[in-house]
């Protein structure tokens, strides 16, 4: 239970609420119980049936599995391409022009809360404070909270070593379980004074006019839009091969797929940072789920379930791309594990979800959150089958793919995979990363890492569901 937070010398003590409020008041919305007993029963029963069938009719079971997977791949590929089509052609983002920004008077601007959860980020403190100080927003209307963990002495020392500008304060998060970013954000939410609120990571460098754009964006989007997601991209895209491929992926996701989702008003899994909220509405939604390791994705779904809307805002926050495989894999593991958590949380009562979202958004949820996770798990199996067939031309393998399934399989293998590579290229092109366009051709190597992380996430979900594998920054 949370009573009071220890605060730094620059701030006085403040009473805070419960950072685990969501899991206590609405346990059905929280990943505190990663998988319910009903879900476990259904999953075990399904596994049992499949195993029985595999023993009784192994060949037929394999054929049905291949057929189902192939249909899934076709639908997934078509869906992703359709999203890109929507993102390119429809007004899928809130684009705020310079004239609109110039017309805003400072006194009309509301107080804006910025929350930056930090843990072992002493090397980022200086850059962060500098980046946030440069935001084009009146200092007296900024409410910046640096959320520091009580046992993170080095970051606290780094913060105390510099003089924080006006509008900055430190909120110290007492040590308690779970040790997650959303728990820290919930503490910060309780202290937030702004009409609007945004989350940044320690290494983020938002565009200077992002807050003003968000204010105009909220007023233009209407009362139902309570969240704006900015585009994310990297300031170190050319550091090494992994950052180049990461950039290609991010460019495709934030510049093509998410605007596509926004264009069709689908559920948008938020991107972890640079999410702008209407503070009052966020509190109504009980903040973030402290037990979910992709609390952003989960919140994106809950916003839609509550009948609100998320839109994409045409502005970029620059982050640091993880440049080492040994840190990249834990980060990706956490993301995929979080997607599994989110999927299972919201599928506890599928009919209720269907009623709340409506059929279209329900299907979007299945495709965006469920299918993308499933694809990373299934991919290695089908790559293995493809390699096996190319090398040995086994007749047994051929018979697993009867006519129509073979046609769909070939379509996915050759057209689907090519399309995904091409999307990476288009993403880089749109970002004007001309030199990275050719690197997008190597994205299939990156998929292997994703699938490895996917399986790691799958096992970790059962062994250590709340483990937060923190990404190390300041490596570039």
């Amino acid at each position: 239970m949370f009573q009071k937070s220890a605060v730094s010398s620059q701030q006085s003590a403040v009473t805070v609420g419960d950072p685990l409020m969501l899991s206590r008041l609405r346990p059905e919305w929280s990943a505190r119980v990663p998988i319910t007993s009903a879900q476990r029963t259904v999953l075990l029963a399904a596994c049992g049936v499949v195993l029985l069938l595999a023993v009784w009719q192994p060949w037929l079971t394999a054929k049905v599995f291949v057929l189902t997977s192939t249909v899934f791949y076709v639908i997934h590929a078509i869906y992703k391409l359709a999203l890109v089509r929507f993102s390119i052609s429809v007004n899928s983002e809130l684009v705020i022009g310079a004239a609109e920004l110039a017309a805003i008077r400072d006194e009309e601007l509301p107080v804006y809360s910025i929350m930056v959860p930090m843990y072992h980020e002493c090397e980022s403190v200086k850059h962060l404070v500098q980046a946030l100080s440069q935001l084009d927003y009146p200092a007296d209307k900024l409410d910046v909270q640096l959320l520091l963990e009580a046992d993170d002495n080095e970051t606290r020392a780094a913060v105390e070593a510099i003089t924080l500008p006006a509008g900055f304060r430190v909120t110290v998060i007492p040590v308690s379980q779970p040790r997650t970013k959303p728990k820290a954000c919930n503490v910060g939410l309780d202290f937030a004074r702004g009409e609007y609120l945004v989350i940044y990571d320690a290494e983020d460098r938002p565009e200077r006019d992002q807050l003003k754009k968000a204010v105009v964006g909220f007023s233009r989007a209407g009362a139902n839009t309570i969240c704006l997601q900015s585009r994310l991209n990297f300031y170190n895209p050319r550091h090494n091969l992994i950052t180049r491929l990461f950039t290609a992926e991010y460019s495709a996701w934030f510049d093509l797929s998410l605007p596509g989702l926004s264009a069709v008003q689908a559920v948008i899994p938020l991107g972890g940072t640079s999410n702008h909220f209407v503070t009052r509405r966020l509190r109504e939604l009980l903040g973030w789920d402290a037990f979910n390791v992709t609390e952003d994705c989960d919140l994106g779904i809950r916003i839609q379930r509550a009948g609100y809307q998320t839109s994409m805002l045409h502005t970029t926050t620059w982050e640091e791309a993880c440049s080492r495989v040994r840190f990249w894999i834990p980060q990706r593991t956490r993301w995929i594990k979080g997607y599994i958590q989110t999927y299972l949380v919201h599928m506890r009562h599928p009919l209720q979800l269907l009623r709340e979202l409506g059929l279209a958004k329900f299907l979007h949820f299945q495709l965006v959150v469920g299918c993308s996770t499933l694809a990373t798990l299934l991919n290695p199996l089908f790559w293995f089958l493809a390699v096996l067939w190319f090398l040995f031309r086994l007749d047994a393998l051929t018979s697993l793919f009867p006519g129509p399934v073979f046609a769909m399989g070939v379509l996915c293998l050759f057209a689907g995979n090519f399309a995904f590579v091409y999307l990476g290229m288009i993403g880089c092109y749109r970002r004007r990363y001309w030199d990275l366009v050719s690197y997008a051709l190597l994205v299939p190597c990156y998929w292997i890492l994703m699938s490895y992380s996917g399986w790691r996430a799958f096992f970790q979900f059962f062994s250590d569901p709340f483990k937060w594998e923190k990404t190390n920054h300041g490596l570039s």
Partner: protein
Amino acid sequence: MAYPKHESILWRWGLWVSLTVVLLAAGLYLGREVGTEGLVREGICRELLAGYTSGRQGVISSVWWGPFPTLAILPVAFLLPAALSLPACLLVSALFGAATLVLIEQALRMWGAGRWRWVLLLGVALNPAFLEHCWTGSSLPMVTCLLVLSLYSVTSWVHRRRLLDLVWFAFGSALLLGTGYEMSGWVLAAVCVVAIEEWRRRVSGAEKRAVLLVALLPLAYMVALWLLMCWLIMGDHLYAMRSLMAAGPGPGSALILPDLIWWSYACLAILVVWMLVLALRGHDRGGVCLAVLGLALPGAAGLMAWREQLWDGAPLLLAILPAAVMALGHWLANREQGETANGGGASTRCDRRTVGVWLLACLPLILADIVPLALPPGALRTASVPSDSMQGPWLPELERHIRLQTPFAKVFVCGFESFALLQSHVSPIFEHALDFNFEKSKRDYHGHVLYILVPRPEQRNAMESIHWKNRNIYVQGGPDALYDSDWGNWRLFEIIQATMPR
């Protein structure tokens, strides 16, 4: 050029669906039947869905039967309920035919051609040759659709440098190449135009490389995939192109076109040359690009005619009209905008000349389209194979002829048109043979009496593997093939086998 920012998606989709319904209904009402090409492609789809090797071979084994039209028909053939008894190729042809018209309308509207666009659109829509192909399940509507898409997107790319236009061009040209060998020359010309356009721009080398990569990767991938598939399925990565390397002009493969049609195409080419001159004078880079690519069509056709690989009904020839219409529409749009900018004014001498050239081009074309309809069948020289021989009414008779000699017989029906021939008569003695091998067949059917049925080497049939692997087999037979009898446009040979030791 005036590119409006917003366009109605509803209008575009509505027009597409309506035109498809109209085209399909008109074809069915007029009682048009599926042509040979439609039957062949439907047959390949059937075999492919049944999981037979012949189906897989049929998709990729010849540049004269490109994979894209078959693959476009495949999902429709799979999903279309059998109860409808509507051939999938008819629906696909109507869809692509309607898409061609919608794309032309969109291009002319976006360029600002005003009311003229409807007149120009009618010029294409009422062209009997175009309609005939839409009604008979031919791949021509796909070719024209992809050509128009590529032309429109490359011109728009030159005008406004929008990524979406570049992507459409990339996929349009790649799929166009996938329709077969005939469009390869034009695609090459289009690639050159984009490359030159990029080379002229004052931007960084990295940007130029990025543009070319985005524009050309689908094309390169299409070629690489085709080669890979040939290697996987045929065991020879260049198999699809062997007909180009091995065969000289076969008997009957030369161009046979009514003179009137020749003249109409020549006049259209003159029109496009005139458009090119006007675009060059007006420093209109989009117009130059459009006219050059328009000219590339008769250029490629001339090259193929020189190699005696062009014939009546070739998509390359029939695609000239939509290209010419687009060139004219582009010029009209430029002219209308010029007039608006100048506050109107009298028609210039240049305009009168253009209209004159346009009329000159149209007259023979209209005559060429109308005259064949007015004349009784067979009055014009044509290289088309009579449809009755394609439907194979003589197949039961052929089967009886063979069964009289032995109950253990196998007839290998060579070439792509076997898919059309055998669709009306199912019998275990007939087998498709796209890659016929004498020795292998003797080994596989040990103890059987074997025959091959060889199509007459004319038009696309002259490029079949049976002809380039066994020169003059149709006329002279071969060391393993003994003449038996003629059946329509097909010739039956008995395969000579060594006497089995007792």
